[in-house]
């Protein structure tokens, strides 16, 4: 590549020959830097534990045991990872356009609420597949419109999408509470305001042989689909261009507004689907328990995955494992519940800092550029 002084034919050969190690060197950067970041945050967290007088080794052993050490732990981890996959996608897709959406929780809440609400008049007569299908569509529509509005506000009115999506989360929770405690409240449950249950026969079951509901598999498939969309289609390419340089994209005639609204709508639909699975696979109804923070943990997952839909899967499992082990850590080490939040926070900060090293470490650069 850099050997421009050589004859053209020879240059092609060397570039062919050096291409593989070169590519390896480049992609190694994306493996080594996150790994180093993990190790650094592990060390920092160990210092934190040591200051509290607790054994770091014991802690990591418990995280292993509680998150990945037994078959029960794995299922615990995967169950917790399932909603994170969806809510991380809600952050990752708009991030390609340079949009930072942090209100996926609102789309999850409304998606779950819409799914439960549309089910109410259908429970008595609709067959399960029809009921679930309509619920899923309602959930995706509600979430999609919600975050789609954030994209539209950004494009047409110049409203900051981060703040708008965060504030709209509070509106979403209020909408949920308004209906669940009012018009759509199931009168048979006087003490926990909820919508009418869809009935255990209509609930989505678990993947055979596990405790994990089908939502995880759907999430994994969705990650693959959206990876293809963002990396192998003109839509994804256009989104990436717009994310790289908005003005340049506009001057090239790309429909930036449409890209933003559609990306945000897709993102919201993902979070809405998470809400649908919470209702259809876990709770069977909508109530305040939908507001569980999955949307906010999803932000962390997406950033750790560098907004790559395929990487979201292992990262969601990793964070699901940390969450799954949180209880064991509390019980065995007598550490407060916030301990795993400290670990998550450290990870987040260190990973963000590590982002600044991409392209700056000479070991990963080709000789010509180094």
């Amino acid at each position: 590549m850099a050997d421009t002084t050589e004859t053209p034919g020879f240059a092609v050969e060397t570039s062919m020959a050096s291409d593989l190690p070169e590519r390896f060197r480049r992609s190694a950067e994306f493996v080594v830097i996150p790994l180093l970041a993990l190790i650094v945050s592990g060390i920092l967290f160990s210092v934190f534990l040591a200051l509290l007088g607790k054994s770091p080794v014991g802690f990591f052993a418990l995280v292993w045991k509680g998150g990945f050490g037994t078959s029960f732990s794995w299922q615990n981890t995967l169950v917790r990872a399932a909603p994170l996959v969806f809510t991380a996608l809600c952050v990752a897709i708009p991030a390609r356009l340079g949009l930072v959406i942090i209100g996926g929780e609102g789309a999850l809440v409304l998606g779950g609420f819409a799914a439960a609400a549309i089910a109410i008049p259908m429970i008595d007569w609709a067959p399960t597949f029809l009921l679930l299908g309509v619920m899923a569509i309602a959930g995706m529509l509600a979430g999609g419109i919600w975050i789609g509005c954030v994209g539209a506000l950004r494009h047409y009115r110049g409203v900051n999408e981060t703040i708008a999506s965060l504030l709209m989360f509070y509106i979403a929770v209020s909408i949920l509470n308004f209906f669940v405690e009012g018009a759509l409240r199931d009168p048979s449950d006087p003490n926990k305001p909820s919508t009418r249950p869809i009935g255990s026969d209509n609930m989505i079951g678990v993947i055979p042989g596990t405790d994990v509901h089908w939502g995880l598999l759907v999430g994994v498939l969705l990650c693959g689909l959206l990876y293809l969309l963002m990396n192998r289609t003109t839509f994804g390419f256009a989104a990436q261009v717009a994310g790289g340089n908005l003005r340049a994209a506009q001057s090239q005639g790309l429909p930036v507004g449409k890209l933003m609204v559609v990306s945000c709508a897709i993102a919201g639909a993902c979070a809405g689907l998470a809400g649908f699975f919470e209702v259809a696979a876990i709770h069977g109804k909508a109530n305040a328990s939908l507001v569980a923070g999955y949307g906010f943990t999803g932000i962390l997952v997406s950033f750790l995955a560098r907004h790559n839909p395929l990487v979201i899967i292992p990262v969601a499992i990793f964070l699901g494992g940390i969450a799954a082990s949180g209880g064991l850590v509390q019980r065995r080490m007598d550490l407060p519940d916030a301990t795993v939040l400290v670990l998550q926070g450290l990870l987040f900060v260190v990973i963000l800092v590590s982002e600044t090293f991409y392209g700056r470490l000479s070991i990963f650069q080709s000789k010509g550029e180094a």
Partner: protein
Amino acid sequence: MSKFKLSRRTILKSSAAGLAALSSAGLPRFAQAAGLTVGIVYVGPRDDFGWNQAHAVAAAALKDVPGVTVVEEENVPETIAVEKSMESMINLDGANLIFATSFGYYKPFVLDLAAKYPDVQFRHAAPLWTEADPKNAGSYFGYLDQAHYIDGIAAGLSTTTNKLGFVAAKPIGTVLRNINSFLLGARKVNPDATVQVIFTGEWSMPVREAEAANALVDAGCDVLTCHVDGPKVVIETAESRGIKCCGHNASQAPLAPNGFITGAEYKWETIYKMFATDLAEGEALPNFTGGGFDVDFVRSTPYGAGATEAAIAAADAAREEVKAGQPIFVGPINKQDGTPLLAAGESLDNYEPALDQTDYLIEGVSGSIT
């Protein structure tokens, strides 16, 4: 439902008479088990000066019982997380008795796990168990309105403006019942007393609780009490505004050294120790147990500096009356809208199941449910 009511009353009476244990047959596991491991799950922090602390205090007392190991987990949301936390206690810590202390843990999470782990006993802190539910699940509950009634008596003798303030979370059955009982206590000793209620809409929303408490003081209330998960903010606000207060759930006496009168407290350790002893002796646990002062499931917080001699004397006397079964709801009582609840000469038993379904405030309480 009627079956449930009947059996509950029967069990209440029998447990009061010390006959709660029905049979010791068919209880293979715990009798031989060398030790009993009790898992306790909390929805919030263990030191919230409220609902969770009341349980944590009892858990601490349970730890002193020989042969009992207690494992605890706090801040567990009412989602699949609680199912996994309980399952983790069973699988990784060998728990054989689980106390699920938050309302929303029961359906579907406790019910699902009880079916999945028939050898483990599950008990849930709300009157929800019915005959249709698994036999290894059950409910325990303290009738805190009895203690709120005593608070009302002490408050009614402490007020000079005759206006008592009540900060309430959600307008649901148990909360409304506590408000009504508080007023009835106050009215018993001070016919001019009124109770002003503000609902915050959330179980834990400190900012709104502080606003509500200040608004009540501004409106002329000179005694405050509350029914929220963590009464800390309400009690501290009352103290800082120089008025008196009554507590709720756990002891808040240290928060108000000048104005604290007394408080309505659960005494879960009575139930926890009873269950632990029953299991250790191979006895069956009751599926439903509940009660008030008569069975030592609730108590009044020791009087603080805000309690006058007269208030103490009246409250102590009334407690003995309630303990002896004298009813709190004695007619004539009208609902807020003027419709009669009880005519003169009528009364409701303190464990009348209809009171669980309270969906009204009574005359003398100002503030709207909707």
